[in-house]
């Protein structure tokens, strides 16, 4: 009888421990929002509402506006997404349907997982070494100042880095399309392209889109590789090769220079905005994937 009591107590303790660990998840998230929010809004009277509307980031004259970085972030993100979409779709279809379960599909998946494992700082370094000289040549040939770095270079490297996330999820959902649907279409005399176009893609649409959402949120948060490649200037890009800054890269760059409290708060505010953006992204992704399952 006593051992029974002990076991019940141990069980309760165990369940409590699990709950405590799980509770850490919202607690940490809330802690992040609060600690960054407090520092940000502490100096908000100094920073002012122009923070969200101005493109003028000039710490020397105490003027803080993050529009340049927001634009830079979304520009690199959408460009990187654009570069990676054809490849991601092709790989998802190839490994999830055309060659599903074969050796070559496994090989491609494994290559992708190696890409996803490459540290971002190594990506950035290779980008600097390989991509920048090529870009410089192109810029010289086209008559632009040959910086080599810029949002185009950053987007290209970013495209490689975010590719595995959407490709993996795409492969998963495409391989989950019910066999009878596909076979019904084949039975009607459809070619494989038609089955993919009219049966598989409509069925797997939401899963594929949420794969791209994951890629996008990775692209927004990517810091080190982008910082190395984007050129770090606090202006809108002047042309297609132009240098600019993203929200994450400006934090990495200017954090150590933040002498005054206001400057520091302005940088923390960028981090605060990034949390909000990631929350919005994962909320949207959740809405989309809910339709799928």
């Amino acid at each position, binding site marked *: 009888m006593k051992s029974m009591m002990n076991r019940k107590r141990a069980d309760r303790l165990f369940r409590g421990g*699990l709950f405590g660990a799980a509770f850490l998840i919202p607690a940490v998230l809330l802690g992040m929002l609060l600690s960054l929010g407090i520092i940000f809004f502490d100096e908000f009277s100094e920073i002012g509402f122009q923070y969200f509307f101005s493109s003028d980031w000039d710490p020397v004259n105490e003027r803080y506006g993050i529009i340049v970085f927001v634009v830079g972030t979304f520009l690199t993100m959408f460009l990187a997404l654009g570069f990676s979409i054809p490849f991601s779709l092709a790989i998802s279809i190839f490994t999830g349907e055309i060659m599903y379960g074969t050796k070559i599909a496994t090989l491609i998946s494994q290559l992708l997982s190696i890409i996803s494992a490459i540290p971002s700082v190594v990506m950035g370094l290779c980008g600097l070494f390989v991509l920048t000289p090529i870009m410089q040549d192109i810029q010289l040939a086209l008559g632009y100042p040959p910086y080599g770095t810029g949002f185009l270079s950053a987007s290209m490297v970013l495209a490689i880095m975010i590719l595995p996330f959407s490709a993996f999820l795409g492969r998963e959902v495409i391989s989950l399309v019910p066999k009878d649907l596909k076979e019904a279409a084949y039975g009607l005399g459809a070619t494989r392209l038609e089955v993919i176009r009219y049966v598989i893609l409509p069925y797997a649409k939401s899963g594929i889109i949420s794969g791209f959402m994951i890629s996008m949120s990775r692209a927004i948060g990517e*810091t080190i590789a982008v910082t190395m490649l984007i050129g770090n200037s606090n202006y809108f890009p002047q042309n297609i090769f132009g240098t600019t800054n993203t929200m994450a890269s400006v934090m990495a760059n200017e954090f150590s220079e933040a002498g005054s409290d206001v400057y520091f708060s302005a940088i*923390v505010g960028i981090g605060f905005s990034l949390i909000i953006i990631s929350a919005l992204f994962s909320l949207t992704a959740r809405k989309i994937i809910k339709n799928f399952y």
Partner: protein
Amino acid sequence: MKEQGLGRPRDIRSLAGYGNIARRQFKNRLFTGLCLFLSILVVIPLATILVVVIKKGGLNVLSAGFFTEITPVPNAAFGTGGIANSLVGTMLLCVLGSLLAVPLGIAAGLYMAFSKRKKFCDSLYFFCNTLQSVPAIVTGIFVYTVLVKPFGSFSLFSAAIAFALVMFPIIALATAEIVKLCPLAIIEASYALGASFYKTIVKVVLPYSAAGIVNGFIVALARSAGEGAFLLFTAFGNPFISYSLWQPTSALPLTIFQFAISPYENWQEIAWGASFVLMALVLLVNIVSKLIYRKKF
């Protein structure tokens, strides 16, 4: 008749064999070829990166003392100095970060998978996904504001916390996913034998899902160890080997970042060598996880 489900009527007609069959088959072959071509193209960036890192970094590693000496001063002679301080820092971070994140992550994952409060668990999933997609640099700033600033110094301790925070949601999600695959039959069999919830988890569920959990842990470890963003605000870097929990420390991604963007050529050489080492470590860990996973499933 109202059309059901997929596509518009035009689509259905084309499925039913209308149109030029030769053209449709040609389009199909073209599409298959395009998919194959685009998929194969992935090899190019990967091969480029591997070749460049091995070519630029592989030689440095061979130099005497690369693993035993600390990072050199700027403009020192080529081949002098090494990455011992960063290597020690990264190892310490991996150990401390894992010690914190693994038990907590597995426990949180178990709760998400087994709790009966479905609504609450649903929002836990959402929070976990959000936490996972919070950029590492923001995690770094968060740890800076709550641990570095109050304590007055960058430290290995704060870096380990940030390291664990990056790993935690990844492990939790991986555990939750993998534990759900455990067949209900063996869980119920365990209950039927009179085992408690605790015993069932420890003796039945965890052994069953061990390979998957280890795989999730290794993915998280590789992600966290390769990430340099949060180290800027927590570890800060240290030119000497430091084992102290309360001193700033160096780490591989941090050294690579700082040395690669420096104007000193000997530092850039060190950055390539360190890239080689970091990449080799991360790939090794990944391959090991694949082997473990394959053995089980």
